[in-house]
């Protein structure tokens, strides 16, 4: 459980509401004003608090690396990212103490005003494809060959942290010469000639079988 005190608060309020509701169902008392107020607490106030706390906890859980790795088709990505020996871009970012536990979300989330709901809607699409798009039956090695990004990786995601205005960034001649290509995503930061693939085993698997567009 990733949870914070909010998870505990959700469970506590749910338990308190359950006590009120079960007592009412078992005792079958008359509906006096006092009972109605208790029921308001048991049906409205406490479940409302529990819903808010569990939603926040659930949304928080969906940003964790373990959550992304809970589908077997993500096993290779998860194992590589979590490996302390791996030198892949994903693994090195996952070792970052500030956001490492949420590395999948931090690197793949859309940014901007509607970034959060757009990312969550994309996540729902992943769940749909997992259960109804054939991924559930697919072996992990098969998935490694088929899984690819639905759209080109946006360098803006890298630039959220690696600012292009810093002197260190501007000092690199390749950054200067390819600035336009990097800004328009014609060249990816995470490409073979630059900083390397984020998930290199995935690219190797796809290189062995040829490019696949079987599933987004």
């Amino acid at each position: 459980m990733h949870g914070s005190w909010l998870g505990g608060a959700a469970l506590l309020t749910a338990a308190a509401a359950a006590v009120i509701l079960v007592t009412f169902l078992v005792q079958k008392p008359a509906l006096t004003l006092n009972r109605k107020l208790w029921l308001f607490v048991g049906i409205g106030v406490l479940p409302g608090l529990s819903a808010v706390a569990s939603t926040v906890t659930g949304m928080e859980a969906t940003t964790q690396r373990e959550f992304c790795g809970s589908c077997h088709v993500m096993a290779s990505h998860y194992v590589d990212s979590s490996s302390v020996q791996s030198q892949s871009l994903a693994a090195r970012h996952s070792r970052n103490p500030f956001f490492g536990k949420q590395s999948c979300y931090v690197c793949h989330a859309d940014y901007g005003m509607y970034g959060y709901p757009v990312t969550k809607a994309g996540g729902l699409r992943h769940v749909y494809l997992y259960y109804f798009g054939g991924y559930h039956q697919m072996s992990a090695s098969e998935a490694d060959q088929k899984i690819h990004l639905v759209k080109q990786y946006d360098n803006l995601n890298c630039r959220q942290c690696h600012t292009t205005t810093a002197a260190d960034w501007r000092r690199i001649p390749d950054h200067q010469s390819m600035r336009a290509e990097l800004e328009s995503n014609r060249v990816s930061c995470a490409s073979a000639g630059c900083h390397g693939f984020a998930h290199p085993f995935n690219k190797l698997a796809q290189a062995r079988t040829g490019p696949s567009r079987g599933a987004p």
Partner: protein
Amino acid sequence: MIALFRRALGVPVVGLTRAACVFALLGLGLMSYSIIDQRAIPVIVAMSVGHAFGIAAFACYLLAVILDIRNSRTLAVSEPRNSSLDE
């Protein structure tokens, strides 16, 4: 829609209240389970079906309260007439 509302008005208050309790317990169960088992399906089910149960529970409770108030008003209006008839 109006027919549905009229039918709802005919439902006994106690039945509605008990239904509200059951819906709320189901919703709370799903939401609590999603905190213990934080995989995709439990979390999604809690945030969709769980919340739907919660909303249904509160709607049933509100309807029960409205019906109870209406019934008590009807009773209050009819009581003086009955008392005058007794005399």
